[in-house]
């Protein structure tokens, strides 16, 4: 069974079909790229998969379970975690606290435990902090755990978003332009990080503007233009596709 299956996905923003009859499927353990010029509908597709938008028509399946129309928090509980193109961090709290919030779906503390702190509260908190530190180590932010999120550099903020997403133990990770604003060194270590994430058994859907970056790490790529799928295949196949070349060159990207 496919990890994610998108069927005839369409969304209509009062006349503008930002995504139009889009279908593709992602296998378990794959790094799948979604590319296209600015305004092609990549983020909108992300939003429909993660639950920010409800599609006008079409279906989304996560491991065979229908999820379109769910709220984001429900999809997070089901195993989808995401990052945002325009970074959405919890700015005024520490890095560690950001990661603890990221674990929300996987922790069990309810209102009673929250108010009265029974022994099981301490057990769970201790584990959560340990796990948070492991994740920070994994993405390379270990030294920063006590600094405030907004004090991080741009590249570090992008890493923190990934770390926070990983904190919910996702089966499917959606990354929206994670390399945006990064310098070449940062991009290289990001590519390495994405590969290591996949090695943990997490399927990755990657939206990216930087062609070189996507070509290097994805197995398959879907190309969008004006909300429509214009190509789907391996990086080599897609790169050789005249329609894709036209779409990118035609818009001066």
């Amino acid at each position, binding site marked *: 069974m496919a990890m994610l299956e998108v069927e005839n996905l369409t969304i209509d923003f009062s006349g503008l079909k930002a995504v139009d009859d889009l279908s593709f499927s992602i296998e378990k353990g794959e790094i799948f790229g979604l590319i296209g010029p600015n305004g092609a509908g990549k983020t909108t597709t992300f939003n429909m998969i993660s639950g920010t938008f409800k599609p006008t028509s079409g279906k989304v399946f996560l491991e065979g379970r229908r999820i379109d129309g769910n*709220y984001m928090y429900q999809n997070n509980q089901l195993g989808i975690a995401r990052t945002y193109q325009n970074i959405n961090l*919890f700015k005024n709290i520490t890095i560690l606290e950001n990661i603890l*919030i990221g674990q*929300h779906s996987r922790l069990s503390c309810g209102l009673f435990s929250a108010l009265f702190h029974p022994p099981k509260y301490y057990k769970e908190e201790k584990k959560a902090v340990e796990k948070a530190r492991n994740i920070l180590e994994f993405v390379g932010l270990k030294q920063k755990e006590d600094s405030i999120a907004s004090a991080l550099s741009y590249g570090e903020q992008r890493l923190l978003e990934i770390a926070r997403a990983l904190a919910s133990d996702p089966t499917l990770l959606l990354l929206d332009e994670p390399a945006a604003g990064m310098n070449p060194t940062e991009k290289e270590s990001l590519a390495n990080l994405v590969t290591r994430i996949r090695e943990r058994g997490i399927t990755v859907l990657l939206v990216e503007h930087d062609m070189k970056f996507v070509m290097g790490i994805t197995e398959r790529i879907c190309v969008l233009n004006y909300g429509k799928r214009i190509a789907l295949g391996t990086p080599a196949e897609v790169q050789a596709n005249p329609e894709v070349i036209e779409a990118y060159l035609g818009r001066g990207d």
Partner: protein
Amino acid sequence: MKFISQKNIKKLSAAVILGLVALVPFMMEKNIIFRQNKYFYVLICLIGIYSIATSGLDILFGYTGQISFGHAGFFCIGAYGSVLLSHKSWGIALLGVSPLPPIVSILIAGLIAAVIGALLAVPASKLVFHFLSLLTIAFNQIMLLFVANFPQLTNGYVGITGIPMIQIFGIDFSTRKSKFMYFYLVLFFLAVLLILKQNLVHSRVGRGLIAIRENTMAANGCGVNLKKYKIISFAISAFYVGIAGALYAHMIGFISPDTFVQNTSVIFITMLLFGGSGNLVGPVLGAMVITFIQEGFQALANYRMLIYGTVLLLLILYQPTGIAGFGKNISSRLRKLGGAHNGDARS
């Protein structure tokens, strides 16, 4: 030196402060300070009660980022709720039910406020700042009208007197003559509610609230059910304010709709912003300072709202962290001067 961890220092200083505060009425009673000034007892009880209310508002505003200009509505529910459940000639007594002891009715009134808070949160959870302000103002008005328009039960605008004093295990916690003991009751409620608040904000649930304050979209993406957590926040916040309202009613011994007007909601917000939101001591500091101003400048009563408005505006513009924030700023500056390396405080 594991015992002197930062956490323990905090706990220790909280206990010391609480002990000192608890000594104040005792010293007054023994004529060491303020010489048994009866009015001063009322004042410190009021500070305690407003501290509870403001701390409750802080859970909603400071931690969850949801504004309310209608919390006097919950204060009203707590006050009338407890009075109507415990009065010998109003409320349930009129229905032939025997009145409850006030210490029980106070808790039930808090719970009623919590339930109504949860109900208000259902429409409120869909609204942001401006519309939420309007909704909560409307809620405040509705509570007032409700109380005023059922004179058979509540005596309408005339108000209710003869509110029962509190007795627990045969000890009088409030008498007509002195509020000396009542302060300890208020202090007890305040201490318990502050501990619960502190527990809450250091838990998964509290972090869910903070996530909503920080970034609603990201909170949702992290698995926080926005509606559910806003309902929780409103309910807990309303519980605190309801308890405060009930304690107020049993201390003053008289309530009428006038006490719970819109201005009272604005005073709660002023206290919170003045003291500093999103922390433990801020609401208490704010309640203290504003209560003193309020009672100390009775002559300026007509200009009070004007003064609060100006203070609020200045605070929002220049000191959004309130006076608690002043303390923090100063201590972090001192630490920097002392050369202590503070992680990486790049900004």
